[in-house]
């Protein structure tokens, strides 16, 4: 029982990352009809926003300490972050410590900006082109973006820790009446789960309760009709692209402490997020979220020893197996609409 609760927690946590990425992806599908292979790269850039901010906060001045030596035997160069000098070592240290949460604020304008530039500069010209062309151009863009990140940050993962206060694990077991140490879960992953729930809720509320959102939803349902009403849907779609980019970016920022960011993390998530979106049904926002959590939970269950001993290698293929089964039983995924991306 405790093992199952643990895996459900795990699944929800994994699922929240899948859901966030898939949400943005399906927003772009639904509104713009564009297959965006660069969406994983946006997630990656988000994570690197966190890396960048913590690097900026750690920009240091150098003093030479003649009493110590570096590996070549030269006097050691000691680095002190400017924030330590400016705000005092204590507050400075906690600023650096809280770099990842702070990056949320830092990343939103950056991601929206990147989204605007992408949409206006490139994607806009591909609305009427074939999906194949969209795939090629966005894939090319994804490569360019990740190679640029690699050029500046290297290929090695960059450890980016959560604030000290949020490290460690919470003992759910005691909470639920099990023995201590049976169901423990890291604080930061709980934060991630609630954060993504917040973001997902925010996006839905935005689409549900604002006029802007209503127009966009109408546009998703039938672009032509909305266009006939004389509403400038294009500008709203640009904004939607920015929002989708920001959602992917936020997913990335908060993911940084879970796994050290590296330049190809976007590609690692790309295929998976496409599977999630398609399983959820093209163009369906609730579908993407539901599929994200579903696949996350199933993936976690498949990695349990009991399951693996029955079906060796099941965790290698579970996602794809589930995708096949769902697509064969439900033609348009969990909640897909007819006619979207079917030709």
């Amino acid at each position, binding site marked *: 029982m405790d093992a199952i609760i643990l895996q459900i927690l795990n699944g929800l946590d994994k699922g929240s990352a899948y859901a966030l990425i898939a949400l943005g992806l399906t927003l772009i599908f639904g509104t713009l009809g564009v297959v965006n292979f660069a969406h994983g790269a946006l997630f990656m850039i988000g994570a690197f926003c966190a890396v960048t901010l913590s690097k900026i906060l750690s920009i240091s001045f150098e003093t030479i300490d003649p009493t110590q030596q570096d590996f070549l035997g030269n006097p050691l160069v000691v680095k002190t972050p400017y924030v330590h000098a400016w705000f005092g070592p204590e507050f400075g240290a906690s600023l650096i410590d809280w770099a990842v949460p702070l990056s949320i604020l830092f990343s939103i304008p950056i991601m929206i900006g990147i989204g605007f530039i992408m949409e206006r500069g490139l994607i806009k010209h591909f609305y009427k082109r074939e999906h194949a062309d969209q795939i090629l151009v966005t894939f090319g863009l994804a490569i360019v973006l990740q190679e640029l990140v690699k050029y500046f940050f290297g290929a090695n*993962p960059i450890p980016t820790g959560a604030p000290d206060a949020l490290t460690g*694990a919470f003992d759910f077991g005691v909470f639920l009446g099990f023995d201590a140490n049976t169901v423990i879960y*890291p604080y930061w992953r709980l934060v991630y789960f609630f954060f993504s729930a917040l973001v997902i809720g925010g996006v839905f509320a935005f689409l549900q309760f604002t006029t802007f959102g209503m127009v966009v939803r109408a546009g998703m349902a039938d672009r032509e009709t909305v266009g006939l009403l004389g509403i400038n849907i294009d500008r709203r779609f640009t904004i939607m692209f920015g929002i989708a980019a920001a959602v992917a970016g936020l997913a990335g920022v908060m993911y940084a402490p*879970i796994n*050290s960011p*590296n330049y190809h993390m976007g590609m690692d998530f790309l295929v998976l997020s496409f599977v999630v979106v398609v399983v959820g049904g093209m163009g369906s926002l609730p579908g993407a979220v539901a599929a994200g959590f579903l696949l996350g939970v199933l993936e*976690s269950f498949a990695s349990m020893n009991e399951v693996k001993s029955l079906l060796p290698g099941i965790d290698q293929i579970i996602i794809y197996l589930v995708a096949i089964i769902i697509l064969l039983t439900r033609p348009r995924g969990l909640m897909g609409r007819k006619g979207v991306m079917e030709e």
Partner: protein
Amino acid sequence: MSKTTMTRRGVLKTGAVAGAGVALPTIFTASSAAAYTNEPTGSTVKFGFNVPQTGPYADEGMDELRAQELAVEHINGMGDGGALNTFSSKALGGDGVLGKKVEFVTGDTQTKSDAARASAKSMIEKDGVVMINGGSSSGVAVAVQGLCQEAGIIFMAGLTHSNDTTGKDRKANGFRHFFNAYMSAAALAPVLSKEYGTDRRAYHLTADYTWGWTQQESIAAATEAMGWETVNNVLTPLAATDFSSYIAPVLNSGADVLVLNHYGGNMVNSLTNAIQFGLRDKVVNGKQFEIVVPLYSELMAAGAGENIKGVYGSMNWNWQLQDEGTKAFVQSFGKKYGRPPSNSAQTCYAQTLLYADAVARAGSFNPCAVAEALEGFEFDGLGNGPTLYRADDHQCFKDVLVMKGRDNPTNEYDTLEVVEKTPVDQVTYAADHAMFGGAEASLGTCNPGA
């Protein structure tokens, strides 16, 4: 196969002569010309450095490439000579190899067997290299080693840790300086039993492919021999990025040690996840919970950051060693690149020097002569102490380092500390050991190509 000719150099010279007069076509068919593949005839000789330049191991590849460039410099007599000054063999005079200046070409393995073979083939066929060195995974090493065997040139493996490289997949034309999973286990086990006691229950997470399996097998055997119990071994997909669902059940299993048979990105993530779950803060069976990462590298340590503190592992070499060879190499490397070399860089550096030295001692670039010179070669002064290139399986035998994540690093490179130098005797095994293909494993015969 034996008739193949890839005699670019030989042809060139003749071609140049013909070109000077009228453009007379000269046709070479198979089995004419040279005595062996890519026999150098001009004033230069080409080495091929095949390292991952794209993909997750690109940084490791870059570091290998730095070391290889440095080695070429030293062989050609430029720079400060590095470890050539401390190397026990004095056959290299700093004037290239056998009077020929060394040039090199580079390629990208992408850490994929196919891509690695493609780039190695292009070096052999197009650039006419006599030796290929580099790489950072066992799959690639075995694939390229097989290719070099077929083509008739020497392969000096880079980072490859699987037992198979010099075990069941050993080849007469291939040589490995790097240590292997068995050695890691043999070196780690005594230290672990000393630190953590002999009554421990270990839970293994193992990358689900050949290298992971051989390492898990080696570690389990060595730790069980000293009294540990292996509670469970869970295979994890190579593509996994989030290991939480594999880590979560560990605490409930009654295990008090977690062994992570992962490398590279897998290891960085699994260790980070394990720390997130607070495993090392727990007390199980009345003992402090511990994590072991049998194979360490500097880049992984950097990627895992603070999570690595206090975690034990093993390495082939480390820049903090204080022997003369290490000091000379680190000085030379540090001056040129402003950072200490990684252990895969050191292996590539040593392998390049060892190859050049063997050529000089053999007096020929013929791979069979070079192989003969390397087989049973005993040397010192390259950083690992006295070392033997065993003739039976082309594996180097030398001390192995047991490392621990440093608690208070003083700078960004100071992430690991050397806990113990396990003497070579403790890590030596028989060439027909069961984990190394048993009695059936054979090098085959040396292939000189043409």
